[in-house]
């Protein structure tokens, strides 16, 4: 089973081209930082309520990437808001992305292809060579979103993160997205840290939209 960071990097890859799907980089960074925090929550290292997120167990998880994140949150000392914790880790997002890609290649899920664009610019693509994990996750999420099945906590996190990235189209057809709007909104709220990720990404999208809007 992949961790949330690896799962989100995998979902953010264009399956045919092997590049990243169109998503503002700052929003993608928040989603990866949120994925790390939510993984720590499911490993019972951090907990949260309506106001605060706190480290409850600073013992290493055995995953270097997550342990680094846990160490940084523990070093804050006092409890943070969930948004502050996510923002604190957002600076590491590129590191998380590269580590996730390395793991996905090492696990035989992606292949790394280096090339050149116009014989000058170096390019790197990651075509998917084993899509079993993606198909399994998408199938499970479809089942939950299209029925009244209660999700398990890991599925709730994935739904939150996918919704925050506006990548539901990877899981559902257009008519299904329209039909499940209320269900997706309800399930996305079930994780309090996930709510913070959604809010932070929405703020970024709002800023991007308004910074590029014409001024009359």
């Amino acid at each position, binding site marked *: 089973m992949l961790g949330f960071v690896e799962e989100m990097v995998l979902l953010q890859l264009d399956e045919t081209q092997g590049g990243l799907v169109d998503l503002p980089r700052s929003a993608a960074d928040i989603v990866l930082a949120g994925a790390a925090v939510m993984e720590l929550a499911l490993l019972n290292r951090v907990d949260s*309520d309506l106001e605060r997120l706190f480290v409850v167990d600073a013992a290493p998880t055995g995953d270097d990437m997550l342990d680094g994140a846990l160490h940084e949150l523990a070093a804050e000392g006092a409890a943070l808001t969930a948004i502050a914790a996510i923002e604190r880790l957002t600076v590491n997002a590129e590191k998380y992305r590269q580590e996730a890609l390395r793991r996905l290649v090492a696990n035989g899920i992606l292949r790394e292809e280096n090339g050149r664009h116009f014989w000058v610019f170096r390019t790197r693509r990651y075509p998917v060579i084993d899509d079993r994990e993606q198909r399994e996750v998408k199938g499970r999420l479809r089942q939950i979103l299209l029925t009244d099945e209660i999700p398990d906590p890991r599925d709730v996190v994935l739904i939150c993160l996918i919704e925050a990235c506006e990548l539901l189209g990877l899981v559902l057809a257009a008519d299904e997205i329209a039909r499940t709007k209320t269900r997706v909104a*309800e399930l996305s*709220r*079930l994780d309090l*840290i996930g709510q913070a990720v959604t809010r932070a990404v929405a703020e970024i999208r709002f800023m991007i939209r308004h910074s590029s809007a014409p001024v009359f």
Partner: protein
Amino acid sequence: MLTTARGGNRGAGLAMDFAQEQAGDVTVVRLAGRLDSSTAPPAESSFARVLDGDPPRLAIDLSGLEYISSAGLRVLLVVAKKVQQAKGKVVLFGLLPNVREVFAISGFDKILTIQADAAAAVAAAR
């Protein structure tokens, strides 16, 4: 049966009590104290023992639950999922205002059945 799980992470004295009794074919579980990361693991173990019924029918009394965190919400989500998979029923009742607020903001009140009192919860769990 009454079991007490004492949390060690956030100060001595913070604990959760887990008690159960039968009301006919419905198991009434009473949770009291705090349901958070330190009491979630023993709460999960205790719930696992009461999910043996075929199908499980649970009424969970939260009138003594003073605090619930994300970890606590996950415990209830897992219980609800297991009950659904076993084609049983789970109904909550007696939520204190602060716990009700957490349920409202997290949307747990939309996916879990909540009743006003024990009688209504037991009837709905049948």
